[in-house]
């Protein structure tokens, strides 16, 4: 009897406390369900609990039912060993670590099969075919393949025992935008052919919107809302869902300010009484703070004392008029014909690149991994040497005051051995400013002055990135380069940082070079954009123009690959 997968009353506990509470979910045969949430929401742990792969020290209780098999999760991971692979399979996020480096792809794909099938060339060929991979991959080792291809191999491997449901834990997050779309299309096709269900775990709202029949929203270890597909966002009932939807940067237009949810995501075990979201909720009242709401509803469910109803006033969206690219020749820095090659037998990282940035202008560079966008930034700021070309600045202040940089990973952006105040003071001194400015600098990035005595490791990702930004603007550089500054942050925090950047540009009049692969993000910040691919600039122009009428084939492909926007 094929009635799909049902998870009831899941509770996951770790050494620090609760990780997931009272989680229920149901997946119909052939259905795609998306489990959406930010970091710490417990979505990954839910997947691990369902497959019995929880890390040591973490236990789960609850019931899992698949067709006519029922498993009591309290019995431990071994209770699920009968289901793993044959009924439920897992696809992990990182294609670079999912496969054993010393075994060939072919044998890894069929390793879950019976011994006689394992070595069957036909079997291997069939499975590679299913994921659109050529036969030669069977003899190759994982490191010889690209990320996208490796993920396909992993997919083939997880499908080997013909499971009824596949759980994908952020399966496309580590891939390029174009590869993402291919992968999701492939998943969809395979689902149809095998009549397989898919539980898609993701933080990307666009992916969920586009692909899911049903969406479940998790926050701090609890299910806060669920409903049919895109409706969940369009007609969000839970304030968190609405907040999440609003802070997700849109592609169609630029907002004056991205609505952000104040504060940051708590750890699941830190919230004791009342509604999990209450501390950050604008609508919260006494009851919300004291009593935790239950999940109510049939088709769409929500756990909230004050859910948003259609009659509630819509939050006004303030669309900004796109800042017109200045026509005046007010260049701050001009890069002409930059070329760089890392080694003679690899293709050039930079191939005759021309880029210009005007004073006070916000310019974006978009591209996928390997496009050269990061290399360009590093050459511009002096961290990397370039082989030929020129960089001409129209200012002659010392280098430290010309350009500063903010990196992607906030956790390693700050010296763990120094206090925040000391790091900032050092940066101020580099710009010939006095360290007494530290408090006002912290205030500028929205942090309390007491943070000066703290060390980086106690701060959240968003806060660390704010400190990194503070350090970068301390010497008042003319240009601030940001290399994927929000890619490692949660969506709600991302919005905060983007707002911060916009306000800083306006207040301080600095130019901004924003490098990212995320088109929606760059849309919100820049007035002009360059599109790069394989070391060359394939297109450039005012943001809106390029977005609405892309000229180059690659640009068109890039934009159309963005999910759900």
């Amino acid at each position, binding site marked *: 009897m094929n009635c799909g997968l049902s998870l009831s009353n899941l509770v996951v506990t770790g050494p620090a406390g609760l990780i997931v509470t009272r989680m229920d979910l149901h997946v119909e045969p052939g259905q795609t369900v998306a489990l959406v949430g930010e970091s710490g929401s417990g979505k990954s742990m839910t997947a691990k609990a369902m*497959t019995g*792969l929880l890390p*040591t020290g973490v236990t789960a209780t609850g019931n899992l039912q698949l067709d006519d098999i029922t498993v009591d999760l309290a019995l431990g991971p071994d209770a699920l*060993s009968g289901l*793993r*692979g*044959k009924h439920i*399979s*897992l696809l*992990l996020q*990182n294609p670079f*670590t*999912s*496969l*054993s*480096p*010393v*075994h060939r792809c072919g044998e890894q794909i069929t*390793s*879950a099969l019976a011994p006689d099938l394992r070595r069957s060339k036909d079997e291997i060929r069939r499975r590679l075919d299913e994921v659109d991979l050529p036969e030669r991959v069977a*003899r190759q*080792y994982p*490191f*010889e393949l690209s990320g996208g291809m490796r993920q396909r191999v*992993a997919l083939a*491997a*997880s499908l*080997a*025992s013909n499971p009824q449901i596949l759980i994908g834990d952020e399966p496309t997050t580590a891939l390029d935008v174009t590869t993402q779309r291919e992968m999701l299309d492939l998943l969809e096709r395979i689902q149809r052919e095998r009549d397989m269900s898919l539980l898609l775990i993701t933080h990307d709202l666009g992916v969920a919107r586009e692909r899911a029949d049903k969406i479940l929203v998790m926050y701090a270890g609890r299910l806060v809302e669920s409903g049919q597909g895109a409706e969940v966002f369009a007609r969000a009932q839970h304030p968190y869902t609405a907040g999440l939807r609003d802070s997700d940067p849109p592609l169609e237009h630029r907002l004056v300010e991205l609505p952000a949810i104040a504060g940051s995501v708590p750890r699941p075990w830190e919230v004791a009484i009342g509604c999990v979201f209450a501390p950050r909720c604008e609508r919260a009242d006494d009851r919300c703070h004291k009593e935790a709401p239950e999940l109510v509803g049939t088709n769409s469910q929500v756990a909230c004392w004050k859910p948003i109803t259609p009659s509630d006033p819509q939050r006004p969206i303030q669309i900004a008029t796109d800042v017109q690219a200045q026509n005046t020749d007010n260049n701050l820095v001009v890069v002409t014909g930059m070329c760089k090659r890392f080694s003679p037998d690899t293709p050039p990282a930079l191939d005759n690149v021309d880029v210009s940035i005007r004073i006070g202008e916000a310019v974006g560079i978009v591209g996928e991994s390997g496009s050269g966008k990061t290399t360009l930034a590093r050459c511009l700021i002096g961290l990397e040497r370039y082989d030929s070309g020129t960089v001409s600045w129209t200012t002659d202040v010392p280098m430290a005051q010309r350009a500063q940089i903010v990196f992607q990973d906030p956790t390693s952006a700050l010296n763990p051995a120094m206090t925040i105040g000391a790091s900032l003071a050092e940066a101020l001194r580099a710009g010939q400013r006095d360290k007494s400015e530290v408090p006002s600098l912290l205030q500028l990035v929205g942090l309390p002055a007491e943070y000066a005595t703290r060390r980086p490791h106690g701060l959240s990702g968003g806060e660390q990135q704010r400190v990194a930004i503070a350090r970068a603007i301390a010497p008042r550089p003319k240009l601030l380069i940001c290399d994927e500054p929000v890619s490692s942050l949660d969506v709600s925090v991302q919005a905060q940082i983007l707002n911060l950047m916009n306000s800083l540009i306006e207040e301080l009049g600095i130019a901004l070079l924003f490098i990212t692969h995320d088109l929606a993000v760059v849309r919100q910040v820049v007035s002009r954009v360059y599109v790069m691919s394989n070391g060359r600039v394939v297109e450039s122009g005012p943001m809106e123009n390029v977005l609405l009428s892309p000229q180059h084939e690659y640009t068109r492909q890039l934009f159309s690959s963005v999910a759900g926007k």
Partner: protein
Amino acid sequence: MTQLLSRGSLTRFIVVRLAATGLLLLVLSFVVFALLHLTPGDPARNLVGVRNVTPELLQTIRDKYHLNDPFMSQYLHWLGNVLHGDFGESIRNNTTVTTLLSDRVTLTLQLSSLSFLLTVIIAIPLGIAAAWRTGTVLDRSVSAASIVGVGAPTYAVGLLLLYIFGLWLDIFPVYGSGDGGFDRWWHLILPAITLASGLAAMVFKLTRTAVISELNQDYVAFAQSRGLTRRQIRSLVLRNAMIPVATSLGLVFAFLFGGTILVEVTFALQGIGSLLAGSVTFKDLPVVQAITLLTATVIALTALAVDIFYYAVDPRVRQRGIR
């Protein structure tokens, strides 16, 4: 395996590494040779030793060892002899160094191989078992024991074992190398155990760390999620862990040599180690030079063997080619 392991690339790899090893040994041989001139005192006198020093004797020595020739030609001369297997004469005894060595080499080989065997048989399975069951009584107790084992100096352990099992309980013979065949091995048991204790502790630790590190990798979780059996996962992990474990075994080799010297002295075994100890105290330079150079050669060849093993076993190395 055959695809990436083409004949040509493997031979090329070996040739290049051999050349590098050869170069290293050449430099070392130079240093070893220079020992004669670096020791305080007149080289000729040092070569004479405790015999009566007369001007004629000194002159004979000088002629025999070409001490009046320029440095480089002396070196080349010496090197030439060495490559023919001639290390000169021992100052202490009146035999050639080669005879001295060949008499003792068997014992040292027997001792080393027995210790190595014991180490591998005990430490590696224990390391794997402990890694598989971290935190259990087995893991904790063996880990604790290994920390003591690593710290305990070889000779101290040796003496203790010698006293307890040799004198007090009178199970094993106390000194000497026994008379050939089985008796020899019986005599070597206690020394081998002594040596193995320090080595096993090291190998256990390294194996355990390597296996734990592999168990924490994503590919293990992915394999489990696909329903692979415990046995399949174990072979997956071990295949990957083999690589760091092999490195550790190579490292262990160096320790083995130092330990052999101590063990041989402690148990009064007539091996190369005790020969070295005695020769150093006695300043018997030709013997010291010979043993040092031989040791260096063996270690260098072991390192080469480990590299070749890497090449055969880790496809990533093959792809990167010769470094």
